[in-house]
């Protein structure tokens, strides 16, 4: 299958996050029964949230693709020549004198 490592890790991260949400709601249900005040999520949920966040972030940064350079002088961005101004191209140049060697014809 075409699932990359990054994609699987992202999936695991989402699962951990949803498990954290589920255990929080469970915990609040338990608090209602014991009639305690809600002071904060249990320690295990906090750990789950942090782990899930890290995994999802890592997957989101690696799976969609590589970063592109924003430096103007990097090879992807550095301009070495302008396009030939084809809208203004004229035909009286030395091509008239030098007939191309290839003598091809459009066959149909």
């Amino acid at each position, binding site marked *: 299958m075409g699932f990359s490592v990054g994609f699987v890790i992202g999936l695991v991260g989402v699962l951990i996050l949803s498990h954290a949400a589920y255990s929080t709601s469970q915990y609040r249900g338990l608090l209602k029964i014991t009639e305690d005040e809600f002071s904060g999520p249990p320690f295990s949920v906090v750990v789950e949230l942090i782990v899930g966040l890290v995994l999802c972030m890592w997957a989101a940064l690696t799976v969609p693709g590589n970063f592109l350079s924003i430096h*103007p002088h990097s090879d992807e961005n550095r301009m070495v020549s302008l396009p030939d*101004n084809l809208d*203004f191209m004229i035909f009286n140049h030395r091509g008239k004198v030098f007939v191309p060697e290839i003598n*091809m014809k459009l066959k149909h």
Partner: protein
Amino acid sequence: MVTKSEETELNRLESQVDNGGGGAWEYLCLVRKLKVRRSDKVLKHGLSILNDSKKRSSLGSEEWTLYEEVAIAAMDCQSLEVAKDCVNVLRKKFPESKRVGRLEALLLEAKGSWGEAEKAYSSLLEDNPFDQVVHKRRVALAKAQGNLSGAIEWLNKYLETFMADHDAWRELAEIYVSLQMYKQAAFCYEELILSQPTVPLFHLAYADVLYTLGGIENLLTAKKYYSSTIDLTGGKNTRALFGICLCTSAIAQFSKGRNKEDKDCPDLQSLATAALEKEYKQRASGKLTVLTSAFKSLKVSS
């Protein structure tokens, strides 16, 4: 705009196609995308695709784009028979098309029948007075007949309507430079830098024009624009590095008696010479002595 990585890709594909390694269609697409003028190669490889009916039908609707590309390339190579055949195929497929009409007029231009081409363009403009390509072709038509002042007139009229067309500004600048009308060319390059401030080549061309104009003010400005070219290219533009050296030397001659040194960046020139020496050592070590003697005659040193 052709970036460094695109240029490398183009050269790689070109040598691959030339040595019969396949990838002709990818090459033709890249040539069209980068708008480079490789007419002989486009003609050769494009025709070999068009003559192969299996390859041609696999292109789908892209086939017609290829016909157009090959037709223009054939005109550029003066293979007028091929060009005519291609245009006829397109005319059969698209009997009403304006784009094919432009191509037919272009064929007249390639034949050298200026009057007929002019007439064809005029009738195309009557149908659609805002056809930018046709307006530009009229400029080219004047240029092809050697009527540069006419071309300038047409271009100025065109730019009054389509001010954002930077290709036209560039063309105007190049015509002015060829006529040695540097003040006007400088204005065009200013316009280009305003519209595309991140293109180092416009900064470079503007600096060249200012350096050619001469005078202490222009030289100081030219030096600044050479510096901005170096800034935008990361010091990989040899011409800008040489420009810095030439400007420094010329400015030094101006300010000789007055003892008014250029205080903004005293080590700019020594950095430029050092960068040049490093590059020559790496890529053409045999020419290093020529470089040092050139520095000596300019009275600059690292």
